[in-house]
């Protein structure tokens, strides 16, 4: 689905953020990228979406190395970035409009999805009338409607309160299981990463040369209680300790 091959990237000449980084993501996987702020998580996202191009190395999407990636990856940013002058329905339709779908048929396509995404009845509301959790749902729906099988979610729940966050995590997993999308999920919340993912990539020192990869030993469907299993608690400890070390540096 997605493959980084010896990717090097930096904004300055001698200031590489990524150095010879390689990794692959298989179709249908849910992968979390964990690291402290400034560790290069967002840089990886900018490269995957095509907003930036690697200095050296190749990024292959669907087996096409270094092809056009803009418009081929669904992206959900940290802030919802909904357009305040568009209703919920119009916001969700945005990627379809950009892809050239006529307004009427875009609306027809999106309306049933609003129901499924728990947004029924809000289609004519403006974003300012919605709660934070609802806005994130719209933003996620918008990413899904880009029609791309690879979705990048950049700390989507970091601005939500703790209770809403838990509910949204479960909601997200349900949506994901139903659609068999491939998800790359940035977070700094270790528990969130373990609950959601098949694999966790941890970013250590800069420049990033490789990830510390952790396979989450849980099947699906999962419940919150699974997080209390001893092996998961141990993993969590290990991840937290590693992150703390990074902060010490």
């Amino acid at each position: 689905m997605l493959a980084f091959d010896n990717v090097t990237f930096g904004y300055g000449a001698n200031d590489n953020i990524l150095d010879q980084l390689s990794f692959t993501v298989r179709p249908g996987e849910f992968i979390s990228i964990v690291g402290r702020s400034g560790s290069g998580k967002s840089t990886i996202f900018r490269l995957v979406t095509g907003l930036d191009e690697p200095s050296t190395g190749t990024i292959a999407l669907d087996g096409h190395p270094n092809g056009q990636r803009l418009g081929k990856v669904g992206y959900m940013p940290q802030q919802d970035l909904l357009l305040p002058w568009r209703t919920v329905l119009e916001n969700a339709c945005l990627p379809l409009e950009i892809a050239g779908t006529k307004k009427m048929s875009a609306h027809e396509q999106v309306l049933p999805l609003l129901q499924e995404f728990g947004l029924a009845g809000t289609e004519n509301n403006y974003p300012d009338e919605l709660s934070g959790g609802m806005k994130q749902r719209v933003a996620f729906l918008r990413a899904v409607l880009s029609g791309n099988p690879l979705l990048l979610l950049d700390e989507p729940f970091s601005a939500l309160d703790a209770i809403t966050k838990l509910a949204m995590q479960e909601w997200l997993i349900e949506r994901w299981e139903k659609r068999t999308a491939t998800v790359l999920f940035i977070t700094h919340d270790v528990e969130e990463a373990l609950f959601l993912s098949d694999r966790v990539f941890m970013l250590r020192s800069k420049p990033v040369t490789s990830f510390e990869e952790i396979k989450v030993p849980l099947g699906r469907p999962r419940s919150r209680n699974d997080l209390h299993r001893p092996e998961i608690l141990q993993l969590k400890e290990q991840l937290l300790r590693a992150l703390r070390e990074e902060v010490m540096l």
Partner: protein
Amino acid sequence: MRNASSLLIVLAFLSVWEIGARLADQAFILPSPIQIAIKLWDLKEVLIINHLPVTLLTIIIGLAISIVSGTAIAVWMFANPSVRKALYPILIASQMIPVIALAPIFVLWFGYTIWSKVAVAVLITFFPITVNTFDGLASGKKETEELLLTMGATKKDIFLKYSMPTTLPHFFSGLKVAVTLSVIGAAIGEWLGAQAGLGYFSRRMMTQFDGAAVFAPIFVLTVVGIVLFVCVTSIEKRLVKWRNIN
């Protein structure tokens, strides 16, 4: 009623004026509101048929030129950073020029035609429209533009679907200021040289020591300003309706 308190203040002001004017009893210098109202009624045909259309035309042409050229230059500055660097400081500095004092030069250039008045109106309405529109365009968030890029948006998509709607409220703020100024610009333009128009009429009556007839066209000009302002506000409400929630 929503504006009851404002109305009360205006009524109080008019009453004080009326009483003061009657006590002073020099109608040619200080006419009372009632005298002005009577004069307005007497002059209604002259003012509305002969002079209002001339002034209104000046205002509308002036505004139209300012809107078209102001938004064009704003978009140009937004699209091209070197144009912005060159023009923006000049634009700000140009506001230090006492534009009104320039008005006589337009009479030299354009004579007593409508264009000398239009030029004054354009010169004072151009700035608020251009600067507000530009600031609106520049207020767009980079993150949102990048999000649209990840959806495969072209530059045109981003401009039409993001930059323009972002700018609309700013544009209307500029337009509201411009509409008010345009009335002033047209009237001043007419003082300096005209054969018709509300500003011209008011000034001519001054030379005849007819205080009430000086005030009557000013009243009409005020109404014109208010009506234009209300028009702009209602268009804004319709186009920017998402702002009226909460």
